[in-house]
């Protein structure tokens, strides 16, 4: 083996570690139990001198597995960066001395903790390999942008400023998207008092003048194959000609479709020409161009207008939108100003239930509307009666009465329907199942936008209400397809300015990913990770669980049904590893063995010692930081705890649970991120998948005649600092009650 293993263990004596632990004994443990070829102590390991000590051994002694027994793996990451070695961090500071009291009685168990962590670190190092890129990478400094609206154009312009080429593929015959249909936009600058010019013409001119930007009009993407760094896209124009180009990453800015107001029959939409949507009013305003706005039915100058907010929105009725589109309140204020600015005597009433004007200037804009004399009435419209003039019947919620107003024109504030493409394979299956159960027809699927050549479906997966996003607070723009970023209203409802901000963010992410993919590095959240999954083909049973459970559609299948990994699409969460029933999937530095051998390396005292052992498998994204923070706050927890960070709870193999039970652990705690609708899993579905798998652990335990309480799964947010220590201490008392495990040898 070219990669002959040589473990170097380095124990830091700083931050009080040497005062609390017998470092000499730790060194002995590392060399005797951990089989470390070299073991050194240092007073201050993260100093320049300490780092040099390690680097010298790597350069001169051939050390290729480095075990650093010091602080948490989340601390001092800049100092401890070594190339071409497998790096293991053993947590003596946050994991041991900070969570234990400095008393004589506690000294023995604290030392046991430290010794175990050193053993575990060496065991992990023994089975870890230095990660190397697979060689499947490509560098393409070009970005594909689907959609030529304000979002798409902004992404292209921003990418160009950073020196990247981009190609806009626009379905319609012109750039500008929905914004081009507007007369003016909601103000973006102080004092936020008046509608502003959209600026879309200037933007189109800038795009056309930019040598870095290529525009395809009347064109669609008929096939997108490959992976980040080497996407291969077929751009087909209306005339039928197809051009294939390479791209590093993709920004999907496919925008929104206006809500189909024809379902709003109660508001006489379609029956009366004088009931229009906000977008239709923009057309009337454009036509008037600052002059009096005329209504569609008879061309009369409008002297009174009522805006009905939340028309077909924030409603659970069939065919309505459940979400708030977020921009329509400000849009109605803006449109009321079209009338008021032209003639202050025009009656403009905004009928709302909850006025929401998000953004920095939202409240100022609302005030400005009030100052200009726009009347805001809190109420719910029930009906618009169509006669010569439409009459709005509504319930005034402040005066608590049913009333009606006759006006010249009614404007419906209908919302945004995301234009997020077709459903994934998984979503279609769910639809089919629902249709079978309810007897409803299967809904017609939308046209695909990206036409991805992925096993999992042609477009990025949809989240709440059909928007294509993964987590709009924690990691916006990231979708469940690596290297494809969404921006603008396809991601969540928003106005022009928000779309501009959004597209800038997505463009930066896209550039980042194109570069990362070229170097074989992972994208968020394991940014920079070089490891990638591989599988032992001889052992694979072609069960397809890994291809199905991968949250990112990274795994395809070959003709025989074996998984085909696309390293660049992979986020390195390890959900496939946790899914594999025959344990053939592994990463270089994260595998069934790197964790399995760690838990086997823990010294288990015999039954009569009254020293139980609790194994904690903690998600490195939220649970492990929460434990670190508990330690920083000097919150104590049981000395019998041994914590192993995992990449995601989804990567936890059931074999680790059975192994730990068999080796005599008394309790196992699994800590992952919250799952479900308000999930916080950094890999979207990892923790949810794990919850499902762990549901069956109880049966396994019963078959071993063990109590169910011995394995517990918790959902931990990063702020659950009190909770994590409580959970561990509760487990200790549970074990006291139910007794020690009978599996100690």
């Amino acid at each position, binding site marked *: 083996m070219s990669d002959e293993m040589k473990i170097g263990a380095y124990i830091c004596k700083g931050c009080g570690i040497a005062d609390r632990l017998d470092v000499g004994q730790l060194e002995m443990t590392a060399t005797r139990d951990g089989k470390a070829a070299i073991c050194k102590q240092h007073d201050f390991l993260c100093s320049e001198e300490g780092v040099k000590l390690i680097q010298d051994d790597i350069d001169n002694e051939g050390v290729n597995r480095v075990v650093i027994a010091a602080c948490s793996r989340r601390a001092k990451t800049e100092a401890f960066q070594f190339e071409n070695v497998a790096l293991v961090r053993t947590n003596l500071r946050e994991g041991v001395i900070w969570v234990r009291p400095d008393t004589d009685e506690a000294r023995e168990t604290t030392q046991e903790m430290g010794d175990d962590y050193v053993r575990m670190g060496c065991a992990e190092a023994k089975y870890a390999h230095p990660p190397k890129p697979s060689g499947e990478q490509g560098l393409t400094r070009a970005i594909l942008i689907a959609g030529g609206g304000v979002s798409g154009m902004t992404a292209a312009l921003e990418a160009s400023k950073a020196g990247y080429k981009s190609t806009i593929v626009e379905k319609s015959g012109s750039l500008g998207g929905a914004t081009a249909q507007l007369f003016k936009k909601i103000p973006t600058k102080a004092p936020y008092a008046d509608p502003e010019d959209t600026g879309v013409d200037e933007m189109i001119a800038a795009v056309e003048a930019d040598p870095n930007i290529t525009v395809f009009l009347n064109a669609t993407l008929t096939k997108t194959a490959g992976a980040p760094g080497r996407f291969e896209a077929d751009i087909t124009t209306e005339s039928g000609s197809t051009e294939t180009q390479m791209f590093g990453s993709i920004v999907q800015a496919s925008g929104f479709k206006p809500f189909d107001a024809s379902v709003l029959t109660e508001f006489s939409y379609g029956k009366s020409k004088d009931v229009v949507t906000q977008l239709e009013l923009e057309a009337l305003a454009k036509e008037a161009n600052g002059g009096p706005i005329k209504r569609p039915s008879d061309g009369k100058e409008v002297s009174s207008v009522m805006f009905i907010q939340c028309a077909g929105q924030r409603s659970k009725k069939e065919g309505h939108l459940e979400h708030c589109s977020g921009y329509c309140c400000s849009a109605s204020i803006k449109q009321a100003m079209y009338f008021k600015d032209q003639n202050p005597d025009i009656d403009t009433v905004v009928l709302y239930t909850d006025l929401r004007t998000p953004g920095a200037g939202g409240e100022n804009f*609302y005030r400005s509307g009030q*100052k200009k004399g726009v009347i805001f009435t809190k109420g719910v419209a029930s009906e618009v009666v169509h006669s010569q003039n439409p009459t709005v019947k509504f319930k005034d919620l*402040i*005066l608590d009465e049913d*009333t009606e107003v006759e006006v010249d024109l009614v404007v419906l504030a209908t919302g945004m329907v995301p234009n997020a493409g077709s459903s994934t394979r998984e979503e279609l299956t769910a639809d089919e199942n629902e249709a079978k159960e309810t007897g409803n027809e299967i809904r017609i699927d939308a046209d695909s936008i990206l036409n991805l050549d992925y096993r999992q479906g042609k477009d990025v997966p949809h989240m709440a209400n059909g928007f294509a996003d993964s987590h709009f607070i924690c990691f916006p723009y990231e979708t469940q397809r690596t290297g494809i970023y969404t921006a603008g209203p396809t991601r969540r409802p928003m106005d022009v300015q928000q779309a501009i901000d959004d597209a800038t963010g997505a463009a930066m992410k896209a550039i980042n990913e194109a570069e990362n993919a070229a170097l074989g590095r992972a994208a968020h959240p394991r940014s920079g990770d070089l490891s990638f999954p591989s599988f032992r083909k001889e052992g694979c049973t072609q069960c397809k669980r890994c291809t199905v459970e991968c949250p990112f559609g990274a795994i395809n299948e070959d003709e025989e049904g074996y998984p085909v990994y696309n390293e660049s699409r992979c986020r390195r969460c390890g959900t496939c590893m946790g899914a594999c029933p025959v344990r053939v999937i592994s990463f270089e530095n994260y595998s069934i063995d790197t964790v399995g051998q760690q838990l086997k390396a823990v010294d288990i005292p015999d039954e009569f010692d009254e020293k139980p052992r609790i194994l904690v498998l903690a998600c490195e994204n939220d649970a492990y930081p929460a434990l670190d923070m508990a330690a920083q706050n000097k919150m104590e927890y049981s000395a019998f705890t041994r914590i192993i960070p995992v990449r995601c709870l989804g990567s936890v193999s059931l074999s680790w649970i059975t192994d730990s039970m068999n080796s005599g652990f008394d309790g196992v705690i699994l800590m992952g991120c919250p799952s479900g609708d308000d999930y916080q899993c950094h890999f979207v579905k990892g923790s949810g998948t794990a919850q499902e798998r762990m549901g069956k652990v109880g049966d396994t335990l019963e078959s071993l005649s063990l109590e169910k309480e011995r394995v517990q799964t918790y959902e931990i947010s990063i702020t659950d600092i009190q909770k994590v220590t409580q959970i561990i201490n509760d487990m200790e008392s549970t074990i006291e009650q139910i007794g020690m495990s009978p599996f100690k040898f």
Partner: protein
Amino acid sequence: MSDLNTSMVEKYRNNFLKEVEAHVEEGEWVKMCMQCGVCSGSCPLGPHWEHPPQELFMMIRAGKREEVLSSESMWMCTSCYNCIVRCPRELPITHIMHGLAHYATRLGIEPKGQPTRQFAQLFWDNLAKNGRVNELWLGVNLYFMNGLVEGIKVAMGMAGIGLGMLKAGRLSLKELVGGHTVKDKKGFKAMIKKAQELEAARVDK
């Protein structure tokens, strides 16, 4: 209906908000209310108002002219200023309440039997006479506000307190005739006249 009221109705027809903006003291603030209800929740007499301030503002916008101006609600205001302090939109709510009450009085459509209104009128008449409040006469007028029999009853009931105040020198029987005045009564009258002219210019414009 007074002539002034008739002409106002003619002038503004359905747009009561504009009428309020033009003629009511601080009336231009009414449109800025955002219906949060903090004023209504803060008013110590809130539960006794038929229409709390927030609702009055909405009624103005909804064009409910008669209901607003003949309402007893704004007469309930005791000028504690809690609403002004708390209004997130910084509306001078107390002043608007008084402005509305005053405007209704000018138009002659205020609720005639409302006790606060009656007291306010008595107080004003009393004060405007000499530039000083004549407490004895104010008390007497107040007692007999609702007729002779009622007045005697109230007076009998309060006799003990009245005698006590006399003894303590807090009340003087001399006040029954003439009473004390400001030093420059003529100047005072001229000042009031000018103020009324200015106000009339606003209300009647």
